[in-house]
């Protein structure tokens, strides 16, 4: 028998990162153009302010802003609470030094505890939300003081997981990272020069000592991102399991995704007319 060579198409595989790969130089150029257009051209600001947590997301935004606006026009604000780790503060300082942006430190302990002392029963979640909302107040007030625009740092994975405080972390009017999964943030951060110590450390909201994002989720970011990527493209959970994704991991991701749609929207308004805003009366954000 004269056997033909058999060429078999590569199946979609759970472990492949193809869909998460980014062209870092192209993406960097695009995000710099985005920041310039949205901050300077559309809104008329020449400066920006960003909360510097010492984590990879805000570090990446600081690097992008420094490139987009010039480091002298960027203000990184460290906003530690008394339980915040020294590493977080040190890493934020490292970013300010590496980028040349301005850095300020504003303790939130007095402001947060002023309220929290009235609520000794508040659990970790409530305390974390209060801290995030205090930081939001400070960021907006500082931006007013400095004549700048606050820039957000939330990534796509945490937005899809609802892993943020509503109307706090998500409130700045411009966000360059909101459509990038965490693994893509890591890739871009490495490319743009965010120090390794920041890129390689476990992601943490740093609200409770020893807390990590992945510990809270019960799944690692690379695994979650691959699953999210397929779910958002319209693949069913069943198809993902057929592809080799563990059922328990698909369930974790799907549960978080399905239970947090509300966090990605503005408040629900009772529609009472045929001119209801954003239902009938439709004008884009930059109109």
């Amino acid at each position, binding site marked *: 028998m004269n056997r033909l060579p058999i060429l078999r198409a590569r199946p979609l595989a759970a472990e492949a990162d193809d869909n998460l790969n980014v062209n870092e130089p192209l993406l960097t150029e695009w995000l710099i153009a*985005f920041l310039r*257009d*949205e901050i300077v051209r559309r809104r008329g600001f020449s400066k920006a302010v960003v909360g510097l947590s010492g984590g990879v997301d805000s570090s990446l935004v600081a690097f992008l802003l420094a490139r987009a606006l010039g480091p002298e026009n960027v203000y990184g604000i460290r906003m530690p609470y008394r339980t915040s780790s020294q590493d977080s503060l040190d890493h934020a300082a490292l970013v300010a030094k590496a980028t040349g942006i301005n850095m300020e430190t504003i303790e939130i302990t007095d402001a947060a505890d002023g309220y929290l002392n009235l609520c000794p029963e508040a659990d970790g979640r409530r305390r974390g939300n209060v801290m995030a909302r205090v930081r939001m107040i400070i960021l907006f007030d500082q931006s007013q003081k400095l004549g700048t625009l606050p820039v957000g740092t939330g990534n796509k994975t945490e937005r899809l997981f609802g892993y943020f405080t509503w109307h706090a972390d998500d409130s700045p009017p411009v966000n360059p990272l909101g459509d990038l999964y965490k693994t893509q943030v890591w890739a871009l951060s490495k490319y743009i020069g965010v120090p390794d110590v920041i890129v390689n450390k476990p992601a943490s909201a740093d609200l409770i000592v020893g807390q990590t994002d992945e510990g809270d989720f019960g799944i690692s970011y690379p695994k979650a991102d691959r699953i999210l990527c397929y779910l958002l493209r319209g693949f069913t959970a069943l198809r993902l399991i057929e592809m080799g994704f563990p059922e328990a991991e698909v369930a974790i991701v799907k549960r978080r995704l399905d239970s947090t749609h509300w966090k990605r929207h503005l408040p629900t308004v009772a529609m009472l007319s045929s001119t209801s805003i954003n239902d009938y009366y439709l004008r884009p954000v*930059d*109109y």
Partner: protein
Amino acid sequence: MKIEVAVGQIKPRKGEYVSNLRRLGEMFEQIEADAPETQVLVLPETVLTGYFLEGGVRDLALTRSQLFDDLLRIYRECVQRADAVLDICLGFYELGEGKYYNSALYATLTSEIAEADSDHPRASILHVHRKFFLPTYGVFDEKRFVSRGRTVEAFPTRFGTVAVLICEDAWHSISATLAALRGAQVVYVVSASPGRDFGGTHVGNVARWNVLLPGIADEHNVWVVYAGLVGFEGGKGFTGSSQVIDPWGNVLVLGSAIDECLLQATVEMEDVATARASSPLLADLEAALGDITMELEQIARNPHRA
């Protein structure tokens, strides 16, 4: 016959028609100073208002004659040369016969002195193409705000027969096929294409255009002149990448995916016949048109076939 073509790849200011018109006036001045040989200026889709207007289409749509009058006025204000004549092709939101459309106007503009000279062409509207395929998926919502055009036509200009397509029109191979069958030798494509997908060498939609546009040129042996919007609108960035492609599918000049620029190219109309002589695909298509028409009629008559 040659056409000296320029493509103006610019960022409009959202909703600011008057300011964008002034910007166009500056471009007329620059062309007169830096590229006076230009005979046709092509500008992107919705270039005088921005693309994502939602209900704002009602505020900013113009009749074709309002737009033409404004273009002619600003042209005459800005150009100095007595014999100035320029064809212009650009996208705009149109109000016509009680409906809104996403349209592209092709017109001839002249200085007042040139207009008075019988040797020069008259200032006039030559054609308005209304977008045939309205994207309404994902980030796009056109069918909600504008009506669909019903025809793809080719029309005569002083440089030969041409056609205009708007953005998604060109994503359907049938549109360029209709234009070529109607006799177009140059297909002007005006577009506002928002960038998405950054995993490859080019932004995902640019990679798609880079296949589609040379495909149109190469299949029908027509010139393709593509004008893409740039700039961000509410986080959505348009990918420019304006280009001029010869009838063999070669990209002769390519604009940035991010920045404003002015492209120039010489369109040699005789290349169309040269290319078709060695690749008679359009003639083959014309020969089979009867059978294709019967096929299409059968399909159209039975849209819900099992």
